[in-house]
């Protein structure tokens, strides 16, 4: 998100929201609602069914929606995510609401291209869905409902390529809406919180733009989640990840290096950086941080008020804030005003039962494969 220079529009939005930003180094026009994206309805509808279909995983038992649960803001409510059987998660499941607007994905930001690549990564990665996409394609082709939907969506016959296009099209529909912040119905406390957010507390230095994220990695020294290192199935999953992604000394380290896997600074000064998460829909997506170490928004604010955690690589901007009790309450009220309506209706959730059994193709010998 590009920051804009001072402009009249910014002031008008700020005034319309009824807040003052006089002391703020950040401009209010950075914020505002997340704009709905142009969506091809048929492709998105197809993508929705695929998102809720467990046959997209190697063992045909795990759909995308198993960890990205609509009622939990398309996250899972766990500190550390579940993973494919035989492995276990070492990071918190991020929300998928507004994900189509991001510039880079995963807590380390390791994919900075598009959701097609992210979808491929999730479907094929050993510890997530562990799927051979050639087999996925043939499974999907066996389902007459998909054959019809792919055709009607303009994709022709089902293919792994179009599966990876349809799911992102659906993800584009997962847009925040109805938050008090966007509709201008903020409480006074929330308004005061916004003032702190952009001013004294300095949150907006990284939590900028309509999603309240600069899409960049920073080190705020969140403590390690000890479960990763004490539970063999989590630790071994991190080791497998480390082997593949090229983490140095992966058998001996006991910390999640974060965005270091992208920049590999030899002095290790980039270890412990994680992508700034969106602040939208936080009411639905606890616990917080890349490893779920903070359970409530009150604790998040208290964490920042202390100046974050302890780490030599910590971003120098993260320092004690000296917020009063009331100021902290106001900040939390503001954060809560960034959550809107749950996306749990049929518009966003595939409600029909998906028959996961495969009927045989009749007259198979006479049909072209």
């Amino acid at each position, binding site marked *: 998100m590009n920051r804009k220079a001072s402009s009249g529009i910014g002031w008008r939005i700020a005034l319309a929201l009824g807040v003052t930003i006089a002391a703020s180094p950040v401009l209010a026009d950075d914020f505002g609602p997340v704009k709905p994206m142009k969506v091809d309805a048929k492709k998105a509808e197809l993508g929705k069914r695929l998102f809720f279909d467990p*046959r997209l*995983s*190697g*063992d*045909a*038992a795990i759909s995308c929606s198993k960890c990205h649960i609509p009622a939990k803001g398309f996250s899972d409510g766990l500190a550390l995510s579940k993973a*494919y*059987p*035989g*492995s276990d998660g070492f990071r918190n499941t991020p929300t998928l609401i507004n994900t189509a607007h991001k510039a880079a994905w995963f807590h380390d930001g390791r994919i900075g291209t598009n959701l097609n690549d992210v979808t491929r990564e999730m479907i094929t990665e*050993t*510890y997530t869905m*562990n799927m*051979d996409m*050639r*087999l996925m*394609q*043939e*499974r999907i*082709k*066996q389902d007459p409902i998909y054959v019809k939907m792919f055709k009607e969506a303009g994709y022709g016959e089902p293919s792994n390529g179009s599966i990876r296009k349809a799911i992102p099209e659906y993800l584009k529909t997962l847009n925040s809406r109805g938050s008090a912040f966007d509709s201008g119905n903020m409480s006074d406390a929330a308004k005061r919180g916004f003032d702190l957010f952009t001013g004294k507390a300095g949150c907006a230095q990284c939590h900028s733009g309509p999603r309240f994220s600069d899409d960049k990695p920073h080190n705020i020294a969140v403590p390690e989640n000890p479960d990763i*290192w*004490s*539970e*063999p*199935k989590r*630790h*071994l*999953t991190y*080791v*497998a990840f480390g*082997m*593949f992604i090229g983490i140095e*000394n992966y*058998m*001996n*380290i*006991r910390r999640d290096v974060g965005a270091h896997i992208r920049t590999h600074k030899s002095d290790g000064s980039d270890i412990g950086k994680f992508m700034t998460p969106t602040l939208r829909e936080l009411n639905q997506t606890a616990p917080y941080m890349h490893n779920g170490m903070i359970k409530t928004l009150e604790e998040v604010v208290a964490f920042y008020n202390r100046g974050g955690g302890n780490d030599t690589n910590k971003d120098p901007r993260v320092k004690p804030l000296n917020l009063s009790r009331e100021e902290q309450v106001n900040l939390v009220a503001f954060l809560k005003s960034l959550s809107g309506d749950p996306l749990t209706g049929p518009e966003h959730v595939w409600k029909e039962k998906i028959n996961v*059994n*495969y*009927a*045989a*193709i009749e007259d*198979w*010998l006479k049909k*072209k*494969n």
Partner: protein
Amino acid sequence: MKKGKTLSIAIIATSFGLTAFGLGSSASADMNPALAALGQPPIPPDNKQSAEKVELGKLLFFDSRIGGDASVSCADCHAQKQGWGFNDPISRGYPGVIHWRNSQTVINSAYLGKLFWTGSAKSLENQAPAAALGAVSGNGERDMVEARLAFIPEYVKRFNKVFGDDWPKVNNVWRAIAAFERTLIHNQTPYDKYMRGDKNALTKEQKRGLKLFKGKANCVKCHNGPLLSDQKYYNLGVPRAEDWLENGMAQITFRYEQYAKGVTEELYRKIKDDAGLYYRTKQKADMGKFRTPPLRYTAYTAPFMHNGSFFDFDEIVDFYNAGGGSNEFTDGTLAKSKTKLLKPLKLSDQEKEDLVAFLESLSGEEIKIPTPKLPPYAPLPAVAKTN
């Protein structure tokens, strides 16, 4: 019988190792390598046997943590109670899928020059990863296998002792499993005893069956040498697997295999049967060809053929007696590759019974071992080693 001669051939075959087992290099074109008792399997010089390695391989063979979802081990499709194979026509495969070929027995795989129905793996060391990592079999992944083993202290200790690994290395998983498989040999059948000179080891019927095997039925044309296999590839016209007509999941795997094995789109669209050796060679003449299977231990490994089409010896003998069968690689739909060696045999009922009796002499005692207790995971020390 010419006891002395048979024995000496067996000894020569054993001492020459693999090349003597019917690969054709030492035998002239029209002389079949002689039938003989089975000796000891060849051991590759770069993966020598040791008791510790075999024991480690046994644990790994039974350990489902090698598989993608940690629920499938080698022993699931090569089950000792099912002849170290799998007793459905088509193997079970990974959860959520079904395989597309019959699971072959591990017994005596140590003697084979190449593995799988079309010889796509050149050694047991190469067969194990292909099965453990393939999408419709183990669906595992190398990094994950190494990572899991690193958290099983018993394996860390054993890999260090056997291979000198700091942490278990995945290539040594396959080497240990291969070493274990080389101990699963079956060369004390009534037939072997007979070929070693015990004339009472075969019944009268079986002796007549052996004569037919070598003579009128001409089985020996391909089932020859000490292994009773020339390890070459033929299309017998085995009918297609019934599953592909009736089972949606089997149809999925069938198409997946065409896709994964890289056939042309034209062929992908129209093929309706397993083209066998063709996937390796991409030669039309190889369509529908599969490797001659060895015949020992077959009392325990039904059903038979690459797709499990036949459930017992009677069906097999009837099939050959009719001169084999037909499929889309014999009738010109896609190829005409049926072997010319098959002709109606005109066997009498008594002869068929004798032949079946002989086949029964090729299996001795069932090989069963106690299933090993598998070592558990444990956390690594909380404080890391520095360098």
